[in-house]
């Protein structure tokens, strides 16, 4: 609790200190970027600290951080010069409602997710140890680039800026890193919620001013964005409970359960019938909450299924691996807000570079460059997407001022370079030490997302998007641009198809690429892979059709919006720019989902796994913002509802809550009566409650249609889609946290599990944390150790070990070159009887600490006597020993 309070106060200080700068930068936004003041502060503080430490001007310690924070304070004080302090104070007084709402949202989100983390805090499994290792290594490194915790003598080769921010917060708050790890997840959850709230608030408030005041409805409606972004999930959870309830299964003649529906859906773990029926997934041998991140499956040309990652924010936070895509989220929303600020004219000013005169203010340009570079350093994949968005927003501003002509296209490319290159240069020290695993672009010949996978994945977001676009299409016939929208969409698809197939064709013809390329695609010898791939796609065109329609409707709205050349008032201008911006978000998301249908980035895996993961995740962010705006517009523009009409959603909610209670309740007769070993549908009262929700939704929809309130009818469909997307959070949260733990079971300490299982090892870790920095050595798994508890001593102590998780090192560095013979050398070191041989290895890697614990004994034919004889025993406990070695110098 103390740690939580410290972090809360710390975040509050960040918000207050950085308010002047944020207020100055986001001058065209109604919220003046208030919700973003924390990410703004973190970015600036982190950048200054990282840069000055990389340039050896600061030490990587608390004092260095405080100096950097002092610079941030000075910058903010400079902003307040020239009477701005009074302006800011007046704004605060006038917008206290926004400030209170935002702060309340922050506290609730931070507290909520801290409790979730406290219910399952262990830093174990998946890639949490890797992230913990990065954070601890950064905390221990005297300077930057930080030591690679799992490859001594090398710097981290990964986009590690997010971990620098985590380490900074952990250090300045004085909490243990393993507690800070979980608080970091909760804080980022809250920052993301705040960022999304801010974006939607600025979108809505721009249109809904009443005599200079923002309507109260906007404050509440803006909550939809964080809800859609962070809570609403894909439809896997909904399908999971249908599957668990035994729907769509029948018995064949042999008495076997068969289902053409589930065979067609073909979701992992859902292709076989459940052992017993219940409204809560209880299947054995699977991790229920995991399946939603593996909805999409790719198939090679010979039909082999390949794993594809399709995370979405709720899953990401539930998993709580502090992966770059999670760490970048608040800054992605910062970039989105900067683009919105640009499109609203907030960048207006003048900046001169030699003889060039730019129509934008220098602070805005500089901060955009800082943000984009930060994204490149935090999650490199995001960099180009948001560069495009900001450039597009600026070009739109130019178009508004100077009209459309060919120069705008030139300006767009110039802006991409003009912002992109300085962004890279600002973080140049990072790029010097970074070796990416990305090895170019490959045509996605065999791999594509089947339509039903795409809809299961994005359904809750696609519904509001389509609803909003359809409403626009039918409501505003004068603002249609059917022909150009169709042609551009067709051109885009054709271009991508030709590009991809041409690449593939070249790949099949070049002898050096042929084998590799066709091997990856699983081509059958003797058959034309290009033709075979095309046929496969035409058999399952769902995603293409969906994206084609979406593209057409979005382009129609975008182009149609600007057909009219008539003079328009300022408010209409704001509204138009808002709509345009939302369409930009939608189109960017569309491009992110369309591109991997044709090409993907080549990495160590050779599949679309990472491309889909990173692209779809950003698409989710963009579409959740656009979708929530469209849904609010849809509901907001519908004619006023009568009080009794509100009974439909209320009834659905009430029934949903009852169903949730009965579905999740476990320990006594309630569960047995309502939700265990159920028979056919209708055998349990719970069945009727669930069907009641469905029936209410149907009645509501029909009622709206009959009332000719078709926009509201569309909204009902969207609400149902969202409700389906809410099944996963309920089921998965319950599943991951094991129900609601009692207060004394809650802890944020991520090492609690280790302390219980390996207390001696954790004592050794504590000893190492206090010991002088030096290379350590511990056991390496024969299989590489990824996702296991190998390398956990270096993970939690921050001491660089000779070798950690081999597979991950290979991914980060694009190969095994740097690892050399380390794995064998470590084996020799532990098992040899020859001291001179061991000594040569100790000298070779400049090892200072030799750790001997449970894993070392189990992994190697350990000969400890040579260490006992020649090394200094500096830590000794029954289950763990540390020997110190000092090489002669």
């Amino acid at each position, binding site marked *: 609790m103390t740690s939580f309070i410290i972090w809360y106060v710390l975040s509050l200080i960040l918000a207050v200190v950085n308010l002047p700068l944020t207020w100055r930068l986001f001058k065209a936004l109604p919220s003046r970027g208030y919700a973003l003041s924390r990410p703004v502060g973190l970015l600036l503080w982190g950048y200054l600290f990282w840069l*000055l430490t990389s340039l*050896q*001007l*600061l*030490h990587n*310690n*608390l*004092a*260095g*951080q*405080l*100096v950097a*924070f*002092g610079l941030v304070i000075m910058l903010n004080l400079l902003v307040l010069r020239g009477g701005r302090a009074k302006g800011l104070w007046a704004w605060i007084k006038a917008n206290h409602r926004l400030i209170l709402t935002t702060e309340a949202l922050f506290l609730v989100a931070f507290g909520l997710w801290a409790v979730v983390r406290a219910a399952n805090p262990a830093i174990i499994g998946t890639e949490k140890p890797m992230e913990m290792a990065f954070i601890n290594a950064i905390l221990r490194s*005297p*300077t930057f680039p930080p030591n690679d915790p799992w490859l001594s003598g090398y710097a981290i080769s990964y986009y590690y800026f997010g971990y620098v921010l985590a380490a900074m917060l952990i250090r300045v708050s*004085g909490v243990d890193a393993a507690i800070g790890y979980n608080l970091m997840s909760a804080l980022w959850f809250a920052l993301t919620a705040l960022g999304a709230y801010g974006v939607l608030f600025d979108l809505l408030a721009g249109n809904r001013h009443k005599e200079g005041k923002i309507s109260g409805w906007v404050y509440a409606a803006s909550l939809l964005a964080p809800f859609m972004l962070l809570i609403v999930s894909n439809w896997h959870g909904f399908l999971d409970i249908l599957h668990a309830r035994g729907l769509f299964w029948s018995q064949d003649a042999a008495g076997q359960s068969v289902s053409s529906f589930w065979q067609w859906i073909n979701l992992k773990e859902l292709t076989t019938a459940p052992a017993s029926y219940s409204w809560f997934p209880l299947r054995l041998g699977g991790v229920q909450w995991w399946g939603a991140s593996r909805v999409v499956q790719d198939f090679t040309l010979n039909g082999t299924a390949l794993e594809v990652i399709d995370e979405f924010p709720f899953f990401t936070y539930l998993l709580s691996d502090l992966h770059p895509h999670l760490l970048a989220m608040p800054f992605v929303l910062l970039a989105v807000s900067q683009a919105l600020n640009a499109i609203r004219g907030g960048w207006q000013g003048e900046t001169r570079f030699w003889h060039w005169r730019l129509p934008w203010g220098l602070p805005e340009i500089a901060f955009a460059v800082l943000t984009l570079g930060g994204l490149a350093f935090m999650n490199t994949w995001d960099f180009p997407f948001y560069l495009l968005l900001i450039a597009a927003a600026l070009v739109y501003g130019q178009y508004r001022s100077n009209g459309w002509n060919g120069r705008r296209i030139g300006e767009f490319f110039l802006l991409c370079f003009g912002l992109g290159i300085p962004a890279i240069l600002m973080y140049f020290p990072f790029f010097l030490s970074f070796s990416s695993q990305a090895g170019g672009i490959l045509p996605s010949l065999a791999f594509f997302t089947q339509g039903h996978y795409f809809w299961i994945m994005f359904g809750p977001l696609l519904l509001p998007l389509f609803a909003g676009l359809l409403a626009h299409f039918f409501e505003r016939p004068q603002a249609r641009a059917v022909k150009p929208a169709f042609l551009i969409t067709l051109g885009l698809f054709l271009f991508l198809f030709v590009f991809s197939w041409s690449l593939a064709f070249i790949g099949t013809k070049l002898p050096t690429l042929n084998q590799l390329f066709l091997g990856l695609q699983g081509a059958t010898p003797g058959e034309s892979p290009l033709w075979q791939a095309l046929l496969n796609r035409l058999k399952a065109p769902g995603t293409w059709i969906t994206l084609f329609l979406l593209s057409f409707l979005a382009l129609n709205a975008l182009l149609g919006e600007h057909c009219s050349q008539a003079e328009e008032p300022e408010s209409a201008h704001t509204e138009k720019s808002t709509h345009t911006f939302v369409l930009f978000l939608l189109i960017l998301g569309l491009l992110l989902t369309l591109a991997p249908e044709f090409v993907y980035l080549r990495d160590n895996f050779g599949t679309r796994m990472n491309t889909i993961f990173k692209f779809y995740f950003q698409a989710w962010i963009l579409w959740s913002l656009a979708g929530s705006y469209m849904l609010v517009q849809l509901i907001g523009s519908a004619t006023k509802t009568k009080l009794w009409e509100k009974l439909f959603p209320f009834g659905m909610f009430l029934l949903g809550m009852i169903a949730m209670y009965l579905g999740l309740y476990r320990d006594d007769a309630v569960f047995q009566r309502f939700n265990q070993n159920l028979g056919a549908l209708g055998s349990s009262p719970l069945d009727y409650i669930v069907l009641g929700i469905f029936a209410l939704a149907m009645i509501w929809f029909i009622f709206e249609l009959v009332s000719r309130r078709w926009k509201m009818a569309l909204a009902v469909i969207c609400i149902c889609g969202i409700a389906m997307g809410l099944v996963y959070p309920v089921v998965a949260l319950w599943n991951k946290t094991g129900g609601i733990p009692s207060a004394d079971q809650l802890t944020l300490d991520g090492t609690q599990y280790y302390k219980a299982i390996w207390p001696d090892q954790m004592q050794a870790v504590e000893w190492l944390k206090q*010991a*002088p920095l030096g290379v350590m050595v511990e056991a390496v798994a024969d299989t590489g150790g990824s996702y296991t508890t190998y390398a956990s001593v270096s993970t939690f102590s921050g001491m660089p070990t000779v070798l950690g998780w081999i597979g991950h090192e290979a991914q980060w560095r694009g190969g095994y070159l740097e690892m050399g013979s380390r794995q064998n050398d470590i084996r020799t070191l532990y098992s040899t009887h020859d001291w001179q041989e061991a*000594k040569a290895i*100790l000298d070779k890697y400049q090892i*200072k600490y030799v750790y001997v614990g449970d894993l070392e004994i189990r992994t190697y034919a350990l000969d400890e006597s040579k260490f006992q*004889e*020649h*090394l*200094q025993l*500096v830590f000794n406990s029954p289950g763990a020993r540390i*020997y*110190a*070695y*000092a*090489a*002669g*110098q």
Partner: protein
Amino acid sequence: MKETATISHTKGLSDTQIQLSMLAIFLLGLCLRLTSLASIPFSAGEAQAAWQALLVARDLPVETAVNAAYQGLTASTFALMQANAFWARFWPAMAGASLALIPLFWRRRLSPFLTLGIAFALALDPILFILSRQAGNAIFVLAGLVWALSFFIAGKPVGVGVALAVALLGGPWAWAVLLLLLIALGIAYLINKAALNEFASALLNVCPLRKSPAKFALSFVLTLLLLATSFGLDPAGISGIAGGLSAFLQEGFLNSQFPAWTPIYRWAAYSICPLILSIVATVHAWRDGAKAKKALSLLTMFLLLGAVLFANLGTGGLAFVQLPIWILALSEIERLVKSTSDQPRVSLYVFIFSLVLCVFLAISLKSFLNAFPGTLAFTQQGLAFGLGLVLLGLVYLFTGLGWSFQAAGRGAALALTLVLLVSSLSLTLSSTVNKAKQAALIWSDSPILDSADEISKVLHEYERLNTFEPETASVAILDPHYSGYAWIFRDFGRVDLPLALPESQSPEIILSHPDWQLKPDQPYRGMDLVASRQIAWDTLTPMDLVKGVFTQTFTTNPNMAIFWIREDLFTGANP
């Protein structure tokens, strides 16, 4: 203000005389501080600070300075001069001595007596004196803050910038004082908002920074950068700008390793004179409603409370109390001196007689406390002391009854004040005695490295008798608790602090924990020694504490170590 200024011009010395007197006091304070500066044993903390400065001077990697002002000045001095104990303590001594010049800025607002009295007190107060003879103490913070305030009053923005930067770089106490001031302001705001606003606006009106903020900012930033980087010797030393804040956040709120009463005890034992006089002054101030003195007494209490609350930051915090307490004490002395007696001759006789009795009391008290309880000497000395006290009381009583209580009181009070002042001065002077350990033991926050001399002697003997050459020899300090000895071995070719003995290299000297075991193939001969020593505050009885006030001696805890010398160096005679 005008009134006091007039007094100084009509009754007091001329301005030139005051300036010359203050210069003389400053020189006296400086000379005394520099006396035997190098011979007092280093504490582990001091040695660590000096060693860090030396590493900077040698262009070797260092940790972030906690006291960047000390490190910056000392490192550059080491680079220019020789790295020795004198230069390691030179700048704190200078900073401490410079305090005596502060009243120069206030002389037009104070009487000559107070001006010179404060100068004298700041120059020779035992606490300020001892603390300013330690490497890396809080003296830079005190000096910086007081100089900054003085420059502020004098309207010198550059001076304010430089002094404030020095204070900020002077260690964690700068931030503790800042926090205390903020809390004090908060309390003042709650108690009397209007008065505080009035004070703030008055302060803003005279603020020299408003007229030339650029000068202030430039001097402040430049000083920060120059000192933190040790005048360019250590560019990464910029982190040291927040080194004090970092230490304050990490250590300031932790419990001290010593019992909570120790700061108060140490302070009281070394501040008897100003403490007694300031209590009297405070009583008078609250009785008479003297606002300035009331505020001063509150400030003193607040700073004392701060020194106790942040005791984990070290004894340095007590230095901040000395300025306000001496102002209060001197104002009381001034009142006493200036008060007119109805029978001056009687006062004089009482003064002389009381003085003799006080001297007798002081001598008999020391003998009484040094005697073992229950012995004849103890009884005799106790009796003598008691009789002395009775006699002093009778002198006052009979003089009062026979002539005048006012005259008797004035004479006795002046005698007592004089004795207290002398006792204060004696504490100051006794700390300059060559190799004086007691003051160092009492006022150090870390153990005293009192085997340094012994080790130096042994090594010197080896150097004389054998083939041992320190310049090319290497030392391994195997126990991190004795890392301060790196400074003691600074003239050796190489000093390492490894956890294990280097495998392929055998250093000539090893300093290890007594538990450390030699391997059979390691050819060394060892010598047990007391590596460091610290007062056993936890075990002292109330009687020990009472005795300690007068005798300045306390029981200490020794920390043992083994001093190993490689066997092949024993080619000649063994000392």
